[in-house]
């Protein structure tokens, strides 16, 4: 009975989740799925809003060297573990380290690399 109730509730949740699925990503969220897909990992979602509260834009986009094009920086796990890109902070000292794979690799499978959250400027300059 208990299990039945549980499964029923789960089914209902799934049913309810469907219309909510069309909900909108947070403005400035970046999907990075350049290499993850081929490696069988979930896409990475980078939330700009969370990071800008803690760091100025210039820290990542000048000092660390992230490009201002989604998917344009050539980030690999190898580089991250050597302290480049995300690894400049996500090293267990400034921020939690890369062993928490699914904090970043938390996107829905099949997402395209790009900026989410609506209002986006488009065209060749937009990747």
């Amino acid at each position, binding site marked *: 009975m208990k299990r039945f109730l549980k499964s029923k509730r789960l089914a209902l949740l799934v049913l309810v989740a469907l219309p909510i699925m069309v909900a909108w990503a947070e403005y400035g969220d970046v999907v990075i799925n350049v290499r993850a897909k081929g490696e069988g990992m979930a896409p990475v979602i980078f939330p700009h809003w969370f990071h800008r509260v803690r760091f100025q834009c210039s820290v990542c986009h000048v000092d660390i060297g992230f490009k201002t094009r989604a998917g344009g920086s050539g980030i690999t796990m190898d580089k991250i573990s050597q302290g480049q890109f995300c690894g400049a902070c996500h090293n267990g000292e400034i921020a939690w380290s890369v062993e928490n794979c699914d904090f970043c690799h938390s996107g829905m499978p099949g997402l395209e690399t790009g900026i989410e959250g609506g209002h986006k400027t488009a065209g060749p300059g*937009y990747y």
Partner: protein
Amino acid sequence: MISLRTRAITSIGLLASILAVFVHAAVAQDNPNAFNRLMKPPSERNAPPESDGIHDPTADGTLMLQPPQESFAGLPKSRSGNYVNWSKAIENELVTPRSDIHDPDAQAIVFDLNIIREVKGSMPDVVYPHKQHTQWLDCSNCHPAIFIPMKGANQISMASILMGEKCGVCHGKVAFPVSECRRCHSKPKPVDQP
């Protein structure tokens, strides 16, 4: 016994609220003549990661992430983007982002110079404030790759901005979107101008 009753009540409550959400969403989506069909209703703004449509709600990591609303609760509001007025937030020190990875006390060099750009059309002229930009950015973020630091050297059009060039490198992606016309076009043209 009590627990059973509580559980029954919670189940009914859950069911009712779930149904209400479902019916509401279904009605809003099914009515082709509904108001603001393509606009995000306030209830859907700053959705938590598990229901934002891009995070995998079944992944454990998703549930560990901070919901935006938790962070934005005390910050000044705006009408678009993250619905946060970030320049007001940093001005009032409600957010204090580091300017150096390691040194929390390092101060950014803020450059207070307004650039007025006269525009050809009927829109008010553009006031570009270096101050608000250098509170977040370094000179080298924009100069010289995006903007040549010389008067008259930069051809800027709304078309190029909408294509993600010039101001559109950030505005429309992470900084306030270009739908906020008057935040840039803010200096009225002289009245005697034909």
